C-alpha cells in the first residue's frame, strides 16, 4: 500500500489537477452553483483514499472515477429531493447572436448537448470523445465491460447527432 499524501504533495496535486476536476464536474452535469461543494468533497476523497489508489490507472482516470461517483450521488440526491437539476438547456438558435460560434459559447453548447444524455452515456462520451482516452481505459475508469463502453458510446453519439440535427432544423439549415 502506498503511503498517504503529505500536505505538500496534496497541495501539488491540488494545484495541478483543480482545473481538470472543475471541468470534469461540469462535463458530468454538476451545476455551477454546486461546483464548490462537489470539488471540496472530491478532494476530501482524494486525500482520504490516496493510499488505496490503484497506480495502474492514470491519476486523472482515478479522479474521473471519483467525480463520476460523486456526480451520480449528486443526481440521485436531486431526483430524490425533486431539486431542479441543470435542465437540458438547449439554446434556441433563433435567438442566438452570430457570436455563438465563438469558443466560449460553443463550449456552453457542448455542455448543453451533454445535458441531453444520461450520466452513464455522458461519462463514456466525455472520456472517449473529449478526453480522447482509449476504450479499454474508459472501461477501467468506469469499471464497466468493454462492450458496454462501445454500446454507450454509440448511443451517446446518436443522441448528440440527433440534437444537432434538431438545432439545425430549428435554424432552417439543411
Amino acid at each position, binding site marked *: 500500500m502506498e503511503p498517504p499524501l503529505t500536505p505538500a504533495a496534496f497541495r501539488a496535486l491540488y494545484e495541478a489537477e483543480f482545473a481538470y476536476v472543475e471541468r470534469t464536474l461540469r462535463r458530468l452535469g454538476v451545476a455551477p452553483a454546486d461546483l464548490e461543494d462537489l470539488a471540496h468533497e472530491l478532494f476530501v476523497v482524494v486525500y482520504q483514499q490516496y493510499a488505496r489508489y490503484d497506480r495502474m490507472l492514470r491519476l486523472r482516470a482515478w479522479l474521473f472515477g471519483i467525480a463520476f461517483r460523486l456526480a451520480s450521488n449528486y443526481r440521485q440526491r436531486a431526483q430524490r429531493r425533486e431539486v431542479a437539476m441543470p435542465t437540458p438547456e438547449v439554446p434556441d438558435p433563433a435567438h442566438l447572436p452570430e457570436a455563438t460560434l465563438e469558443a466560449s459559447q460553443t463550449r456552453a*453548447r457542448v455542455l448543453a448537448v451533454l445535458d441531453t444524455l444520461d450520466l452513464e452515456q455522458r461519462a463514456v462520451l466525455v472520456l472517449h470523445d473529449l478526453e480522447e482516452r482509449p476504450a479499454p481505459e474508459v472501461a477501467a475508469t468506469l469499471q464497466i465491460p468493454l462492450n458496454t463502453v462501445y454500446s454507450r458510446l454509440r448511443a451517446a453519439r446518436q443522441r448528440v447527432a440527433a440534437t444537432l440535427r434538431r438545432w439545425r432544423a430549428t435554424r432552417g439549415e439543411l
Partner: protein
Amino acid sequence: MNEDFIEPLPSDVEHLLAVERPLPPATPELQAHVWSRLEGMLGPGGGGGGGTAPVAGSAGALVGALVLLVAIGGGVLLWASRRDDASSREAAASGGAHGQVERPESLVRAPWSPAIPIAPARSSLDHSGVAQPALPSWFGQRDVRLRPLAGQVLVDGRPAAGVEVRLESLASGADAIRTEAVRTDGQGRYRFTPTAAWLYDVSAALPGFAGAARLVDLRDPSVDTERVDLELGPCVRSLSGTVLDAMPVS
C-alpha cells in the same frame, strides 16, 4: 477488441466537440475557496500556506523550516535534558516531585503526521440510538461549530421504533467518509452526536414502508437541527413486467 470497433465521429459532432477538448483554466476564485476549506484538513501549516502560491516555493520553504526545526529542536532537547537532570537532582535532594519540562510538541513529533485516520471507510451502527462522531470536524465549513442532529420518525403520525436512520454526504456515497446510522428508540426518536457543519442526507427506512429522506444543511444557522422529523409512507407501488429475452421453461 480495439478502437477499430469505434467509427469516426460524424463531422458535425467532431466540429462541436473539438472546441471543448482543450482544458480551460480553473476559475481562480473557486480554486481559492475550495482550498481554504481543505486547509483545515491538513492541520496547522499544512500544505505550505494559504492562497494559491506556487508549490515549488512552498516545498523550498518546507525544507528550510525542517532544517531550522531540527537545529532548534536539538538545542532545546539538549537544554531540556540537562535541565531534567538538574531538576532530578534538585528533586532528589529536596524529596519533592520530579521536575517536568514541557517541550513544544512540534519539536518532538514527526514534521507531519496525518490529521485524520487513513482508514478504509465503513459504516457504524449504534443500536442504542446514538451514533459516535465519525465525520472529522474539518469536513465541515470552517468556523462553524459542530451541531447535533435529532428528530423523530413517524408512521401514520405515530412514532416508529427500531427504524434505521442514516446520515450521509456525497462523499459517503463515494466510500470516503463513514456513513452514520442509528436506530430510533421506543418513541421513534433518533439522535446523532454533534456533527460537522455540512450538507447531509438524512433518511429512514423500514421494510414494508416507503422510505423518507430530507436534505439538511447544518451550515445554515436557521435550520432547527433538533427537529428533523421523517414520515414513512405506505408502500403503494408494485413492480411487474415481462421477460422477453429468455428461454421458455419447459
